[in-house]
């Protein structure tokens, strides 16, 4: 196999890796917000369920969760799971990362002084206005470093999709390594992850800098 075939074969996998990454970010960031609110719900039962959910998501290996999401519908309900591979992966990743993001958000909201809410209330801001205009921008600034860490972890975690035989980049690297008895694919994979994470870190740093105008 020539290097260019290797690269183009792995390139298809990189697209799938990127798909997992971006779809997970797209769903888990807002979902984390929902989980955070459920965790502070007025209803005790909702709070308990959410806490159990977070504990499971953080306390069990993501690989196991992926198997659960994919095969669960068949074993529990006898459902036909054809074509369900990518959705299962996205659900698995999003639910897992949402749990982590929820905890990060919670920490972020706790850094906002009560006075900010009171000032907004006295000035007549509505609930949604207070949340989106006053509180959320400050929370985002506070949580940015922790979110960056999670996002970088996610880039590397995408390789866990091999559990469900979704041919993302790392699965292909392993297959090429087996067929070519060569270490080269792993080197390429390493370079790819490094560049991807460098881009993430660079982007997040730019955002952090852009929010640096206030303390």
């Amino acid at each position, binding site marked *: 196999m020539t290097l260019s075939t290797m690269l183009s074969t792995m390139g298809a996998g990189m697209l799938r890796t990127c798909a997992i990454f971006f779809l997970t970010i797209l769903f888990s960031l807002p979902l984390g917000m929902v989980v955070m609110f459920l965790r502070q719900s007025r209803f005790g039962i909702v709070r308990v369920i959410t806490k159990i959910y977070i504990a499971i998501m953080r306390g069990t290996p993501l690989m196991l969760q992926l198997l659960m999401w994919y095969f669960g519908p068949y074993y529990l309900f006898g459902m036909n799971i054809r074509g369900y591979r990518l959705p299962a992966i996205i659900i698995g990743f999003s639910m897992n990362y949402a749990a982590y993001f929820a905890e990060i958000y919670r920490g972020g909201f706790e850094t906002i*002084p009560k006075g900010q809410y009171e*000032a907004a209330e*006295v*000035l*007549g801001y509505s609930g949604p206005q207070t949340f989106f*205009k*006053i509180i959320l921008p400050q929370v985002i600034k506070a949580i940015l470093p922790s979110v960056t860490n999670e996002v970088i972890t996610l880039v590397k975690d995408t390789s866990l999709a091999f559990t469900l035989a979704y041919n993302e980049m790392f699965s292909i690297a392993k297959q090429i390594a087996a067929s070519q008895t060569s270490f080269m694919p792993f080197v390429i994979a390493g370079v790819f992850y490094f560049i991807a994470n460098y881009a993430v870190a660079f982007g997040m740093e730019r955002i952090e800098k852009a929010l640096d105008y*206030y*303390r």
Partner: protein
Amino acid sequence: MILEMKGIQKSFGGLEVLKDISLEVDSGEVVSIIGPSGSGKSTLLRCATFLETIDSGEISYMGVPAATTGPEGYALYVSEAELRKVKSYFGLVFQQFNLFPHYSVLKNIMDAPIAVQKRDKEEVYEEAMELLRKMNLENRADAYPCQLSGGQQQRVAIARALALNPAILFFDEPTSALDPELTGEVLKVIRQLADEKMTMVVVTHEMPFARAVSNRVIFMDKGVIVEQGHPEIVLGAPTQERTIQFLRNYQR
């Protein structure tokens, strides 16, 4: 009558903080509330601005009721929509300023009139710049709160409250968080507002200021109004033992 509070009663977990307090503020009046810490003066202000809910009693602004006595004797607040209207009658200046750190000085002042009162941007801008001139901060319009001194921040907070054109302005210990050399600039602004006949209620520890600016001084202790009246009388010739005690301690 701008503000009418009648028979206000408020407890925190069994501890009665306000015991049957009544307070009326007339248009153009400047009322100072003094008293030792824990006397309930800040709580009274927070009840008046709906940051705390009262247990029983009545509150109304400009004759519009906000809280009335319900059938079981407990306070009954009006609907959320009606309350919003009442809220537009007053402004509050906090001890800790509570400016929005991610907004510039100008945006801190302009945002609520535009977002809450849906007023015209141009008009609000003109007014905000006028307020900043009044606060002697017109050259800091584009600065962020973290770049300002405490005194400057508090003046921005006052401008922010005034931008909504309230009928009455509350101050909750506006100079307590400031270094002594910065209190003067804030008190000067409040004095200026008093000269313009702005209706104000000020919770304060600054006795000379209270004496010079207020039309009326209220001394509170242990959840009740012990004594109130003309500043020269309450601060100069108090009749109640507790007031005398407090002022003596204060002078020491």
